[in-house]
């Protein structure tokens, strides 16, 4: 699907054509995104919001257009889109700005399936007496939904979880969980880093209060990410960073804050990154997120079948219809890093290790895994090559 748009895919690694299967870490970028960034720097580079001159107007217009495109991608309004660096910063923004009003004894519920970025910021609040609880998983890598009934209490203020696991690919029933949170009077935060690039995400339908994702995993540049926040929440929250751009009026004694979303975007933002991100959002919408999910699930299904034929393999996670294009596995007697090293020599890029989800890896009873993750440009042939590469690794290790 659209491989020709991705210049990097024509390069060779160790003399072999690159097969890139590390998309859950970061995706490659289509030439449309790269061109938009270059054009901005070559034609319109200027600071936004304040300049009256043509370049500043062009840059401001391009920045606002990016917000509209990203808002369209997740069915929000542009005023509810805050640009940050990445998902991690988006979650930290909620942890600092929203959670400033929490009191000792208030509770936050996360899950064992989370990326470290949706665990560590909440652990930091424990010093203020805030209680942190975790929902467990079933053996197939799906959430133990019955845990919510046990964990949610009248003190629960925030329910946070990943939309799709970066390790086992599980798509979580976020709509149902957000509803449970709201019924208990809590708010909800969704880590959508692995879902926005790969499937339709609609904040209205999900009903979440916050949703965080990164540009670089969705065909956009690094250094730009998004926090969606409901208008009411954003208006009530205090800013996270203070300085330029986020103010309405500054006197020496005190200042007043700008409207949303600008109140949360202190300092000159990543303008080029934002422009690239907007083009990436448009690109994804042009293909259609339902088609992308279908493509990825067919690759996941093929991978589970094809790799499943390899003797000594363990594949983690649920059935293909319940996951995005992420497949984690281990080969008996060979460490994930060694598999990844041997595959690299064949030009195949996969991830190995704990995938920044150490509690989940431990819960699965392992210390690391190999992970192949797919994007629009991957094909069944890539998975065939992966399977052959694994067979080579087995040969090297005499397994």
């Amino acid at each position: 699907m659209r491989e020709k748009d991705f210049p990097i895919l024509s390069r060779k690694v160790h003399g072999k054509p690159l097969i890139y299967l590390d998309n859950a870490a970061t995706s490659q970028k289509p030439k449309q995104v790269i061109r938009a960034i270059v054009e901005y720097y070559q034609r319109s580079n200027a600071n936004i919001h304040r300049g009256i001159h043509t370049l500043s107007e062009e840059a401001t217009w391009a920045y606002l257009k990016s917000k509209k495109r990203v808002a369209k991608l997740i069915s929000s309004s542009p005023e509810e889109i805050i640009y940050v660096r990445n998902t991690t910063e988006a979650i930290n923004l909620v942890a600092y700005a929203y959670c400033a009003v929490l009191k000792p004894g208030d509770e936050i519920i996360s899950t064992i399936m989370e990326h470290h970025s949706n665990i560590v910021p909440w652990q930091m609040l424990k010093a203020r007496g805030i209680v942190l609880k975790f929902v467990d998983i079933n053996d197939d890598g799906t959430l133990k939904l019955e845990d919510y009934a046990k964990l949610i209490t009248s003190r629960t203020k925030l329910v946070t979880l990943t939309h799709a696991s970066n390790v086992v690919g599980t798509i979580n029933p976020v709509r149902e969980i957000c509803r449970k949170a709201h019924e208990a009077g809590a708010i909800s935060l969704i880590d959508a880093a692995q879902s926005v690039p790969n499937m339709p995400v609609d904040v209205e339908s999900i009903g979440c209060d916050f949703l965080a994702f990164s540009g670089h995993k969705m065909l956009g540049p690094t250094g730009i990410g998004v926090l969606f926040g409901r208008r009411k929440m954003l208006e009530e929250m205090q800013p996270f960073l203070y300085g330029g751009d986020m103010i309405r009026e500054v006197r020496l004694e005190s200042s007043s804050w700008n409207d949303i979303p600008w109140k949360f975007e202190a300092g000159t933002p990543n303008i080029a990154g934002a422009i690239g991100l907007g083009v990436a959002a448009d690109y994804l919408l042009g293909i259609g997120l339902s088609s992308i999910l279908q493509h990825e699930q067919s690759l996941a299904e093929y991978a589970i079948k094809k790799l499943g034929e390899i003797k000594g393999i363990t594949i983690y996670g649920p059935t293909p219809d319940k996951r995005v294009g992420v497949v984690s596995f281990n080969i008996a007697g060979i460490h994930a890093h060694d598999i990844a090293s041997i595959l690299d020599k064949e030009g195949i890029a996969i991830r190995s290790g704990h995938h920044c989800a150490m509690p989940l890896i431990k819960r699965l009873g392992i210390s690391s895994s190999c992970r192949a993750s797919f994007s629009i440009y991957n094909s069944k042939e890539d998975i065939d090559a992966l399977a052959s590469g694994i067979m080579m690794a087995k040969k090297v290790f005499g397994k």
Partner: protein
Amino acid sequence: MSQDIYREEILDNYQHPKNKGKLAKASSTASVYNTLCGDFIKVELMVKDDVVKDIRFDGDGCAISQAAASMLTEKVKGMSVKKVASLKKDDVLKLLKISLSPTRLRCGLLALDAIQQAIKRQ
């Protein structure tokens, strides 16, 4: 330096590690983790008269980290404490006879880190 990091000696040391296990009596121990990949090495030392008389390691990890532990524990046996403390990255690479990328270097140096930490605790 070999480009093939999985040369025979490495695989042999990984699959049949030397000095793996525990000492009946240790004068110091140290454990280190490679947070990148979850590799783990624990070293037990017996030092007498400032010389490493015996050494064992236990661990879990990739071929590089475990083979390096096997080969390095073998090398330091009989070495003076001072000499072990002065071992450098290049000494390990010379021993392994392979070149490692910056990421894999951390796997290769895990055992050295564990051994030198145990030496410091003498």
